[in-house]
């Protein structure tokens, strides 16, 4: 009898290691439901403003005339500007690139890697004989991505993980990066955005882990420009004094894959504005 109980106890951790992405998702959602019982799931797309009423008031006042409008216009201009060979970005995407933000990131079973929207835009440039663009400094890539997100507002994310070993590995990789303590300060993404979300981090409140990717790229007032999701990831890693990864690297692609899967069922509301 005693042995049986022992065996069951030993088996439990082993089972949790084998948890499927769907189970992770349910766990995540129920964790946040306990944490913030008054926040409906759909509201997590608004990031920290879903749990911080006073900051939300200021943000909503800003949203009446959002600072990213000029960037969306610029993004549209760049999106429609032909490459040297006459093609445009739209030629690489279904529906001419309009209203498709929610289809990214996805796992490409032929290339066995995660394809993000920014990655697909760069692939499109290479295919048309142009140089790939940087994810950083809020230049052309961020603008085009912002315009494409803007045309997709209201569409719902539904990231699928194909049932192949590589796809599951990519997901697990992203999940591992999310929960691994890194850097001199020994923080993981989850430390602030899962365990400590809603508390104070100096004068700020760390946003909940659900709904992060829905509003990217964001216009950050502090920087006065657009920031892509990968630049934000890199910024977070630098802040905890960890060595960051390059924009579009497999590590960050997988992290985006994981975080977007955890935001399934939420609407695209990018580009957003943040302080």
């Amino acid at each position, binding site marked *: 009898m005693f042995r049986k109980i022992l065996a069951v106890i030993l088996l439990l951790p082993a089972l949790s290691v084998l948890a499927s992405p769907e189970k992770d998702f349910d766990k995540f959602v129920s964790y946040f439901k306990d944490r913030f019982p008054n926040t409906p799931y759909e509201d997590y797309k608004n990031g920290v403003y879903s749990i911080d009423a006073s900051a939300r008031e200021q943000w909503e006042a800003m949203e*009446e*005339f959002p600072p990213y409008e000029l960037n969306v*216009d610029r993004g549209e201009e760049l999106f429609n500007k032909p490459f040297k060979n006459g093609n445009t970005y739209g030629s690489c995407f279904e529906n001419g690139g309009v209203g498709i933000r929610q289809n990214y990131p996805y796992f490409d079973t032929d290339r066995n890697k995660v394809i993000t929207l920014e990655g697909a835009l760069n692939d499109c440039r290479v295919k048309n004989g142009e140089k790939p663009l940087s994810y950083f400094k809020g230049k052309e890539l961020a603008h085009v991505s912002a315009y494409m997100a803007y045309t997709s507002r209201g569409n719902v994310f539904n990231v699928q993980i194909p049932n192949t070993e590589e796809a599951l590995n990519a997901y697990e990789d992203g999940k591992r990066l999310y929960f691994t303590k890194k850097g001199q300060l020994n923080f993981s993404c989850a430390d602030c955005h899962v365990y400590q979300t809603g508390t104070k981090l100096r004068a700020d409140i760390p946003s909940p882990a659900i709904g992060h990717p829905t509003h990217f790229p964001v216009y950050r007032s502090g920087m*006065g420009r657009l920031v892509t999701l990968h630049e934000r990831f890199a910024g977070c890693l630098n802040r905890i004094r960890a060595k960051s990864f390059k924009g579009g690297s497999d590590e960050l692609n997988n992290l985006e894959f994981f975080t977007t899967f955890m935001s399934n069922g939420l609407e695209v509301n990018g580009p957003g504005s943040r302080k």
Partner: protein
Amino acid sequence: MSTIKMRSKESNGVVTVKALIKHPMETGQRKNKKTGDMIPAHYIQEVHSKANGKDVITIHWGPAVSKNPYLTFKYKGNKGDDVEISWVDNQGNKDTKIGKVK
């Protein structure tokens, strides 16, 4: 394309005008990192607004105002007013936009 984006709304006899102006607003104090040359000053000096042809506000701006400045002000007015915003910068460039109050 116009450099001014404007929205105006009336409520209880007060019109709130909101505008976003696309402008580099260079102070003249910055250096080009590559060449070491000073970037010439380029900023809006005067913003002027009229409603139905009547002056509403004149604003003097300088190099301390941010890039792509945002402006909002209120005046006593009605729905359907023609609001006009115009700016002039120190290099003599100018732009004007007219919109109707909602």
